[in-house]
């Protein structure tokens, strides 16, 4: 049985269909990523899975409970890290955990013994009495993560868990998320950091305009959708080089004043670079897949 399953899920706001028939299955213990540009419908999909909004059509089953009908029962065993921190600013670190635990029906006595473990996990040991205002962005994010674990959930939803964090803070969050999967928890995260998705996710789905347009392991998606080598070229004469490259590479793309050439073997392309051209030769990444599938247009 899947930890989370969605079938033919649809949701419209007014005349705009935000989620247009989504099928998802997240297996227990895996880290599943939902990728997509802004406005792709990721957050709405998460809200539908949590039973916070009602779908227009389709079913969701979360930890064996039909959602939204038994969403409350399902949420007893689920943790959520929202996109924007909504810690209680009037409370200390410790009080945030105690008050949040009460929403699950735990008494203060039941939560207290868990606080030190949760704070250790969040890297906030010794900060029990700190006010939320005094915490850095990374600390707040980690406390939000600890708060999401207060009920020892089987599945944790994370909406862009590392947006706005510096690299140190981001790496610490990644390390903690890996720990959670090692403990057997199921993770469902949305992100638009491809690096994050590539590192963390066992499987992922790329969403655009309310639809899932590709699904699979990060490696399989790269292998399936894109050539393994990429050459990025810019500088004086890039236009004429782009014309020459077309004969040497299966796919060449011009974006502004940069030329992207993709292929299995880029040696002939490398040899053709001369003059003032600068280049970067790298392996294809999930970001290339993402941009190929969702396009390079800005989304606002």
């Amino acid at each position: 049985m899947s930890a989370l399953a969605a079938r033919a899920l649809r949701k419209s706001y007014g005349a705009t269909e935000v989620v247009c028939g989504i099928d998802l299955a997240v297996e227990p213990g895996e880290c599943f990523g939902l990728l997509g540009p802004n406005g792709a419908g990721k957050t709405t999909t998460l809200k539908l899975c949590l039973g916070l909004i009602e779908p227009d059509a389709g079913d969701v089953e979360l930890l064996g409970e039909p959602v939204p009908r038994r969403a409350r029962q399902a949420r007893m065993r689920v943790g959520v890290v929202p996109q924007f921190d909504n810690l209680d600013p009037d409370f200390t670190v410790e009080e945030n955990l105690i008050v949040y635990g009460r929403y699950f029906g735990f008494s203060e006595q039941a939560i207290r013994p868990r606080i030190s473990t949760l704070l250790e996990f969040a890297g906030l040991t010794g900060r029990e009495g700190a006010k939320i205002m005094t915490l850095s962005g990374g600390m707040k994010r980690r406390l939000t993560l600890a708060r999401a674990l207060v009920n020892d959930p089987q599945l944790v939803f994370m909406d862009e868990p590392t947006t706005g964090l510096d690299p140190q803070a981001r790496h610490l969050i990644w390390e903690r998320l890996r720990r959670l999967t090692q403990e057997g928890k199921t993770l469902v995260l949305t992100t638009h950091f491809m690096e994050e998705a590539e590192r963390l996710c066992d499987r992922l789905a790329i969403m655009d305009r309310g639809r899932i347009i590709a699904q699979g392991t990060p490696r399989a998606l790269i292998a399936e959708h894109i050539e393994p080598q990429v050459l990025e070229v810019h500088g004086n004469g890039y236009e004429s080089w782009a014309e020459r490259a077309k004969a040497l590479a299966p796919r060449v793309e011009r974006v502004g004043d940069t030329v992207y050439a993709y292929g299995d073997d880029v040696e002939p392309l490398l040899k053709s670079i001369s003059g003032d051209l600068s280049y970067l030769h790298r392996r294809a990444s999930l970001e290339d897949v993402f941009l190929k599938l969702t396009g390079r247009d800005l989304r606002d």
Partner: protein
Amino acid sequence: MRWVSVWRRNMLVWRKLIAAAMLSNLADPLIMLFGLGYGLGALLPSIEGMSYIAFFAAGQLCTATMFTASFESMFSGFARMHGQKTWDAILYAPLTIDDIVTGEIVWAASKAWLTGSTILGVAGLFGLASSWWVLLALPAAFLVGLAFSAVGLIMCVLAKGWDFFSFYMTLVMTPMMMISGVFFPAEQLPAPLLAIAKVLPLYHGVQIVRPLVAGGPPPDLWLHAGVLLAYAAAGYALAIHFARRRFSS
């Protein structure tokens, strides 16, 4: 009873900020009670067989209860719902928007009750109440708090921004305070204004509390209590309706 955890959350914040909370909810109405009551009262003969300050104390108890309930459910509620996104965080837990609305209304009514009962205690200390009948003003104050908390929470879940509350305060609360018999007997008003006062909740609160301060049972107690209960119940239902609508999009 899941809403109790929401009530307790607000209670804990209140306990932490108790000095400021007490000052704004109690000092203001008490200063006004003694200022107007003794100041204006010195110029006035007794009204309805009571000293002016005792007469005004009953009205001020209801008004201060109304203000505490309304401020808490509108401004503090909106801060939690909109600014801090506390409601969103609670909704990830196994609580529903109905639980939050219930917790918020009962909390605002509790806080309002504390204001009302403290004013009652002070009035008692100053010998403004003449019999034990006055103790019935305690449940009455809670009922007034409940009615205004429920209505205030409707405003909260309908609000797009902070300005929205000015309309309700200026166009509804302030005129209501003037025509509900707080400062002078409402029966002196022109008939149309009295008729308006009678469909609003504050008038009925005053009609219950004033006879209790004077030392006897309020005439038509069940009618007045019924109107307040109706406001609380209808307000609660509407607040839930609009809150569900707001949080389903």
